[in-house]
């Protein structure tokens, strides 16, 4: 499945400072759909190069990270259960505090 993944707010530092990744994610074996839960595990294994604890806590993202599926907060689409479609854009952004 073709997806565009974007990292911002400093999270890109965890994946070689690359902000936009065009990726091809295979459906997990014996599954008919790809959920955010699968995608998070895939991102952690394939894109995160250092300090995975700065990206995830347990099986979800760490506090202070917003997840947006097609420019919409994943809270509105079922969080980890959100089903992804081909060509979806998923944004992971760390909240900023500076000023």
């Amino acid at each position: 499945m073709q997806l565009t993944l974007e990292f911002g707010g400093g999270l890109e530092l965890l994946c070689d400072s690359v902000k936009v990744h065009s990726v091809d994610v295979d459906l997990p074996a014996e599954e008919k759909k790809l959920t955010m839960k699968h995608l998070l595990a895939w991102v952690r294994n394939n894109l995160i190069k250092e300090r995975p604890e700065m990206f995830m806590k347990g099986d979800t993202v760490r506090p202070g990270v917003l997840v947006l599926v097609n420019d919409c907060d994943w809270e509105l689409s079922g969080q980890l259960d959100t089903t992804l479609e081909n060509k979806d854009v998923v944004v992971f952004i760390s909240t900023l505090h500076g000023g």
Partner: protein
Amino acid sequence: MESNGGADESSRLLHELQSLKDSKRDIEARISVIEAQLQQIQSNQHSNNESPAVSSNGVSEFGHDLTPDMIYRYSRQLLLPSFGVQGQSNLLKSSILVIGAGGLGSPALLYLAACGVGKLGMVDHDVVELNNLHRQIIHGEAYIGKSKVESAAAACRSINSTTEIVEHKEALRTSNAIEIVSKYDIVIDATDNAPSRYLISDCCVLLGKPLVSGAALGLEGQLAVYNYNGGPCYRCLFPTPPPTTACQRCSDSGVLGVVPGVIGCLQALEAIKLASLVGEPLSGRMLLFDALSAKVRIVKIRGRSLQCEACGENGLTQQQFQQFDYEKFTQSPLAVAPLKLKLLTSDSRISSKEYDELIKKGSPHVLIDVRPSHHYKITSLPKSINIPLASLESRIPEVSSELKSVQESNGTLNGSDAGLYVVCRRGNDSQRAVQLLHKLGFTYAKDIVGGLESWAREVDPKFPTY
């Protein structure tokens, strides 16, 4: 003798220059106060003598209470069909509080003072520093070392002497927040740390004030309006604070001046929309700004949460708010102070003065600078070798070969004489590096206490700090 005389002369001139600058600033402050008083008297006379059309309730025959001066000053806004007299009148009756007179607060305050807000308050406890000026554009060189609030207030008064400017020269805390915030209609969060953001949001929920929240770091910015018309608050979105390691600061990670400028301008814009009752506020949405790729993205965020500890069904009470420990909650201080680690015992550390002695004695050693390479390019100590902390473990062979070559060139072939020292910016990463070096067998490695900042303070005042 002659060079000594030159030094005396330059110190005398510097002294005179400083005292002239001080007098100039005092005079300018006095001028803006007098201008404001004069303006007040003139506008009173206007409404008493020259505007017989104004009735006793302050509304003219035109159905608004704008004086001729106001009409002229704000004419370009009055000409906007969607803003007009009604928008301006609403704005003139509104009061806005800007918390933080830094990178975000600077443009926000300038625009809010200019546009004709009725009352403009500002909160900050900090003083102006030279390394603020690239982004905190409300402050000038003459105010270095002086209160940011005083500086910002003088700038706002010089733009618009008819706006009431209120100075709060203190940090916002649970003890004073309710009293200060309750005096205003709208709040702008222009602070730079996590505990302040939670404190301000909770206080706005408690008092029912809309909050325009902005943040900027590096080359990115974020903006949202919270607690507006049934929309979410900051805690609905971020119920759990992030780990402290995820809270980067401008003083560590850097920030391009114009980035908070852009976000601060947008904060002023959202506040003006709220105050004038014009347009659609950025509530339930968030604006994400990426300067490097020139991208602005507006995303839909979750609504108000019934479980929210601040605005939910069992929300925060005034008493709970005043007793809430925001520093403990976010595990970071309200006032931004650099971290001071103490990981090593004193026999594994030397002071910058001791290191200076060591150089003067010509004692053979290797100095490793563990800062990131873009820091090293700003400034570094002579003969130091840059191996950033993150790559130290994989680059240990370089450390060994440097030690070997120093020992060989000093003819001490037994291999235990050359010292191994580590330096960084403030003396935290150098301790982490020495711990690692100890673990890898370099048990004699030591770090320089307080890093390059201490070197600049204690040994070489001309050494650049950043």
